[in-house]
């Protein structure tokens, strides 16, 4: 009989349409991630449930009670909740290289992707005889149909969808005529929907067609390098079907006879992970049985696997969790006298689970959250699920949530992992939203509980309060940015009054001009520190005040961005002593030195008992507690990441006090031992800016800046004019650091790309007539740049429009913000022009807080007046400043740019 209680008859589903989910302000991740693949229920669990079944049937008294319930009860509550959680899906990228059509001269590269979604292959080739590793466009006969050339060095080819046994699978086939002069094919995968890139060990996939290229460690189809590569993507599942790899090396690249050795086919697979949002539903109904004075609550969900209901009851209008009187449903345990945990019963169809709870009349409500495993909890949009019981029992009910109590309770029962993580994530993403949303949520839920019988749609309320939150945030940001009383301006005025400028780690003196002192190849010589030392006086004479040196630590990758032993400063750039000499030399010539510190991730030195690389070595011999829990590669035992994950190495869990203490000490050590003056912080998207504040407060750098790099927003392949969302994310990060660090103005770079590539100079003015990048909102914390070791150099991931670099420099070196000049540009034909721009900036005392008045932003020309001292224009169009109160004299003129000084 018990089964009848659970039958659909009483389970009155209101079929709610999904409410559009508003993604507000920033990309706020759902509060809880499901971070493990769901494990199918074990037979053991099934057995438990069948016992439960028998028990219910056997005990006749309960059975009878249930029957009565059936006959006289009525549904007092029924609601369907939508459960949404981020879920990582594992898939494979397959690379097959084989001989097509059994023709020795026609080879085929087939790249497949087993993840759902729209995939694009972003690829290019190296030609025989190319120096360096820059990409080139493939020859025409290699381009599959539907390919779109991306500038002059890459091609984007959409994957063709194939369905293989119901699984989403897409692939691309590229045919290679053996007569072609292609030396290697390079590619990365791009998710067309999210814009995410999928690389191979943090770099491009590379398929060599000639032998000599096979010693690069990002080469696929060879075995070399893998054993020395702890924790990289490729390690997980590489099935190498090409056992023989390079045997003869060192031959001269220039010679065509290289190709005489026959090509060999191979096939390999790489694991990739993609985060997708999984939707499940949960329905709850309550029946009230007057004769028995019981409420019967029925929960049903289509979540697979074991679902534990972590629950309690409210005995009055406060939302305090209490434990009801026994009896409890089977498979219930008491959790720390605070709550009950009941394992739901798997449905016979195997497509979910369900359970019923019989409770005494007179209780106010049933409160619960769902627990899927130790780390995965599901709640109702950040709150407990709150199921009110029949209001006929208590005619007038306030659901008075004494807010703080609910919170306390929540934190007590949920594992600390979650509560801390949730709060951090929120702070990281938008310090703004959560404070308000909690308040408003209470507000709305108060109202709604009052009217709960009329309006039950929590989703509707949720969307209203999210809308309020969004609108308020929007209004706030506009008011703030358009009001002269904004904090930034206040600071500006204050500081302008003070004769000696206040040094803040977010700005330095305000007059800094930065040099990125390396490129992607700098590690190759093994003596970069010594080479750079010779250039110190030159850099100083060019006017640079700050230099950013490459990451100094022991690293798995030669460039230094995969750090291992943080206290070992012998790197491919030189040893620790050479570094000290370099820093000393730079100080002698008056240049401050920034160390490139990688705090987001760290490569392990040892495996744990499962063979996963997550035990660190060296002086900071952390274990897996220092690794974030939400990257399944590395089986971290820390909390979840407070930011985005970098998947190629274990991400450090900065919420652990011991980790932060060690990092603080390490930074201080670097300051003292090496003499670094400040920091360039790598991949700060990966952790909360509040931690950066802590590190800055303790290490007291002269200047610090973070790399917060994510995608701009595009629509129909065109970059949107309004990039406020993008710069808001950077702004929010700076804000989270409390302004203790600046950030690279990626927004400005992106907008310059579109501006220059398409001749759309109107893009350089935002809707309020200010610069459209971070520089327009928080100039003193914007580190402007046009190129760095990732975007340009030999990686070329996002290269500045070729030939237009000087327009870019004319822009950033005349505008507020702290401009950064890339090494490759300094030591190029541009040096004299860059030098001239820097000296104009210096003699006019243009600084990070200078004011910009945009006087022209049209199709082919942009002009602005900075601090009433400089007028600049870029673009092919005509612009001449009018001589009014000031007389303008031309200070520099170059290709499509001019700068005038007030005289």
């Amino acid at each position, binding site marked *: 009989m018990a089964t009848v209680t659970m039958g659909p008859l009483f389970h009155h589903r*209101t*079929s*709610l*349409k*999904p*409410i*559009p*989910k*508003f*993604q*507000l*302000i920033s990309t706020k991740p759902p509060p809880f991630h499901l971070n493990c693949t769901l494990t199918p229920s074990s037979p053991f669990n099934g057995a438990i449930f069948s016992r439960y079944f028998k028990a219910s049937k056997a005990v006749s008294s309960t059975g009878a009670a249930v029957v009565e319930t059936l006959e006289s009860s009525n549904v007092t509550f029924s609601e369907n909740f939508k459960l949404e959680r981020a879920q990582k899906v594992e898939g494979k990228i397959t690379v097959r290289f084989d001989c097509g059509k059994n023709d020795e001269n026609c080879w085929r590269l087939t790249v497949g992707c087993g993840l759902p979604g729209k995939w694009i292959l972003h690829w290019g080739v190296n030609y025989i005889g190319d120096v360096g590793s820059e990409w080139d466009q493939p020859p025409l006969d290699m381009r599959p149909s539907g390919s779109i050339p991306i500038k002059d060095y890459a091609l984007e080819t959409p994957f063709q969808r194939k369905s293989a046994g119901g699984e989403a699978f897409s692939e691309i086939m590229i045919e290679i005529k053996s007569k072609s002069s292609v030396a290697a094919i390079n590619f990365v995968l791009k998710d067309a929907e999210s814009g995410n890139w999928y690389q191979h060990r943090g770099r491009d996939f590379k398929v060599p067609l000639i032998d000599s290229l096979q010693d690069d460690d990002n080469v696929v189809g060879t075995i070399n390098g893998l054993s020395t590569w702890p924790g990289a993507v490729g390690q997980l599942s590489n099935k190498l079907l090409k056992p023989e790899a390079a045997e003869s090396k060192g031959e001269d690249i220039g010679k065509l006879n290289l190709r005489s050795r026959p090509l060999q086919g191979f096939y390999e697979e790489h694991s990739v992970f993609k985060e997708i949002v999984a939707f499940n539903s949960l329905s709850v109904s309550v029946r009230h049985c007057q004769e028995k004075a019981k409420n019967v609550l029925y929960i049903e969900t289509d979540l697979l696997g074991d679902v534990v209901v972590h629950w309690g009851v409210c005995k009055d209008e406060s939302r305090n969790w209490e434990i009801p009187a026994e009896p409890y449903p089977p498979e219930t345990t008491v959790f720390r006298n605070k709550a009950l945990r009941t394992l739901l019963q798997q449905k016979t169809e195997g497509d979910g689970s369900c359970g019923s709870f019989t409770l005494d009349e007179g209780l106010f409500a049933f409160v619960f959250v769902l627990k899927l495993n130790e780390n995965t909890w599901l709640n109702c949009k950040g709150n407990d699920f709150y199921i009110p019981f029949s209001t006929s029992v208590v005619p007038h009910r*306030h659901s*008075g949530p*004494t807010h703080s109590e609910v919170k306390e309770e929540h934190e007590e029962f949920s594992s600390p992992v979650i509560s801390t993580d949730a709060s951090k994530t929120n702070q990281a993403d938008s*310090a*703004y939203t959560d*404070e*308000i949303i*909690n*308040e*408003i949520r*209470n*507000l709305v839920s*108060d*109202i*709604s509980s*009052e*009217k709960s019988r*009329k*309006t*039950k*749609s929590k*989703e*509707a*309320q949720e*969307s*209203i*309060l999210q*809308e*309020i939150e*969004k*609108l*308020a*945030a*929007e*209004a*706030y940001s*506009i*008011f*703030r940015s*358009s*009001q002269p*009383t*904004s904090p930034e301006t206040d600071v500006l005025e204050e500081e302008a009054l003070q004769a000696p400028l206040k040094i803040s780690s977010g700005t330095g003196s305000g007059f800094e001009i930065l040099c990125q002192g390396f490129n992607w190849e700098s590690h190759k010589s093994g003596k970069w520190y010594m080479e750079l030392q010779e250039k110190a006086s030159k850099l100083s004479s060019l006017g640079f005040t700050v230099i950013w040196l490459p990451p100094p630590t022991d690293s798995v990758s030669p460039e230094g961005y995969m750090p291992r032993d943080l206290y070992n400063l012998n790197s491919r750039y030189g040893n620790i002593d050479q570094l000290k000499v370099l820093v000393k030399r730079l100080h002698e010539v008056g240049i401050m030195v920034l160390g490139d510190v990688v705090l987001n991730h760290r490569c392990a030195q040892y495996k744990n008992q499962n063979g996963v690389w997550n035990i660190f070595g060296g002086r900071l011999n952390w274990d897996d507690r220092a690794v974030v829990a939400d990257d399944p590669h590395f089986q971290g035992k820390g909390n979840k990441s407070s930011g985005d994950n970098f998947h190629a190495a274990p991400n450090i869990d900065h919420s652990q006090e011991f980790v932060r203490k060690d990092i603080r000490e390490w930074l201080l050590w670097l300051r003292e031992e090496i003499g670094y003056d400040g920091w360039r912080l790598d991949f700060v998207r990966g952790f909360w800016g509040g931690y950066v504040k802590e590190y800055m407060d303790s290490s007291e750098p002269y200047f610090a800046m973070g790399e917060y790099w994510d995608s701009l927003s595009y629509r129909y392949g065109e970059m949107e004019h309004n990039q406020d*969302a993008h710069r808001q994310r950077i702004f929010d990060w700076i804000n989270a650091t409390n302004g203790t660090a600046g950030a690279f103005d990626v927004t400005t770079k992106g907008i310059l790309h579109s501006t220059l590539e398409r001749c759309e100079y109107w893009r350089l003015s935002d*809707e309020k007539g200010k610069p459209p990048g971070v520089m327009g909102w928080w100039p003193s914390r914007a580190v402007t740049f046009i190129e760095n070791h990732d975007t340009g150099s030999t990686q070329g991931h996002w290269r500045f429009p070729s030939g237009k670099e000087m327009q870019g420099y004319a822009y950033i070196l005349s505008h507020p913000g702290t401009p950064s000049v890339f090494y490759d540009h300094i030591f190029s034909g541009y040096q004299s022009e860059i030098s001239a721009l820097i000296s104009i900036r210096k003699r006019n005392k243009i600084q990070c807080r200078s004011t910009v008045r945009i006087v022209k932003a049209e199709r082919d020309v942009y002009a602005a007046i900075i601090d009433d001292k400089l007028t600049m224009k870029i673009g092919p169009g005509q612009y001449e400043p009018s001589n009014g109160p000031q007389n303008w004299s031309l200070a520099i003129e170059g290709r499509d740019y001019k700068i005038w000084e007030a005289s």
Partner: protein
Amino acid sequence: MEISVIGSSQVNLGRVNDVGFSNFSRNLNSKNPTAKNIISKGSNLGQNQSFVWPSKSAVGFIVRACASAQNQAVVSEKASRISRTKPNDGVKLYVGLPIDTVSNSNTINHARAIAAGLKALKLLGVDGVELPVWWGVAEKDAHGKYDWTGHLAVVEMVQKLGLKLHISLCFHASEESKIPLPQWVSQIGESDSSIYFTDRSGEQYKGCLSLAVDDLPVLDGKTPLEVYKEFCENFKSSFAPFMGSTIMGLSIGLGPDGELRYPSHHHPVKRNTHLGAGEFQCYNKNMLNNLKHHADTSGNPLWGLGGPHDAPGYDQSPISGGFFNENGGSWETPYGDFFLSWYSSQLLKHGDRLLSLAASTFEDVPITISGKIPLIHSWYKARSHPSELTAGIYNTVNRDGYDSILEIFAKNSCKVILPGLDLSDEDQPTESRASPEFLLAQITSSCRKHGVEVSGQNSSISGDLRGFEQIKKNLLGENGVVDLFTYQRMGAYFFSPEHLPSFTRFVRGLNQPDQSLDDLPVGNQESVEALPDKNLQMQTT
């Protein structure tokens, strides 16, 4: 009394909830695949406006006027409920728009922020907003040349959202937001400084015209009253379509900052920090003539030669000696009474002139007219109430100065706007001997006596809980004298994370004061408990 969905959505959060949420859920159950969310809008507008909320998400949030049969049913039910309720048993909540909403060049400043802010307020359940209409903006260039474009645009924005609007006609300047008097008026003032208030040292206050010139043809042959009247009439005709539907109330500027007082504090000092009680502002030519005439006719010609010679200066403590001395000060002498009576009567007459001007101009449109009186709480505990005296309110331990003021409000059927509902005695520096709470109690009891309704305002936007608690106490504990509260003002701070949550809590507290007990620090509960038979559901008029 309006009878419409707006009426209901205007009421309070609960009511908004009624309308908005029930439609939400209904729509959720509908088969509409595009998941449009329908919010009912003012059906009395008779428009089928729809707009898309700017949203960064792919799916827009579509709000559309809804005129379904179901909705009509809701409307009529609401209407009948409202029409049965008495006007005084609830408090409407408004929020002031930024002072410089309409810029000097007659455009909307930060329009996008205001648009977003208005929507947020609407969703929060705020009933309406207050919009300052500046003389110096709308009649900026020349006498009789009005430009309402900026203000009209704001009113339309407000109307589209189904919010209500209170208009403040500002015949003063705002130093804070750099909004001056009309240029052509300032030009006149340059040649004839007697149109301004003047203090003993001859310094002029150029934030508004002196009340002494109300009826003198100083403005190109017109009297200021005539100019004000034309302004009001032009406003009325320009905004006629909105009167009574969106524009529900209007206040007329009565003096400095719109308040019925003399500008006794020339130099803006930070609130509550000044020690002095201000100075008498009776030293312009016209005031002095008037005083002399008055002295002559009352038989004491020697009393008409100037203001009190022993009145303290701006920065002198008033009760230390001289005119306002606690015991035996001149204020208690026959001369003192003569002067103070005259000084305050000038202000009263000015108030009466302007209120009747507004009442007569707008008598044929269904809006309430109000005027603002100041809450001059510093030195309230001194026997002479020196700050009030210099401001022109003859209120001392011996005399109720507010009674006659509220009499003229009652006579003209005007509402009174009272600021400072957020101020509590505890927060005042002891040396200022201020008591905003007692003063407020005195004024409101006068209001009750004369049957004058009160619209409350706050004086500062600190966002601290105490201020909100004080407002709540004043709103819910005054036996219905306050029927509308205008929270001042929208701006960056208003929407900041430091402030908005407290404001939201405040709105919730107004809606469910019982529950707010939990949030209150111990000791603040009496105000709520003291409410007998409270109808805490706020109602509309």
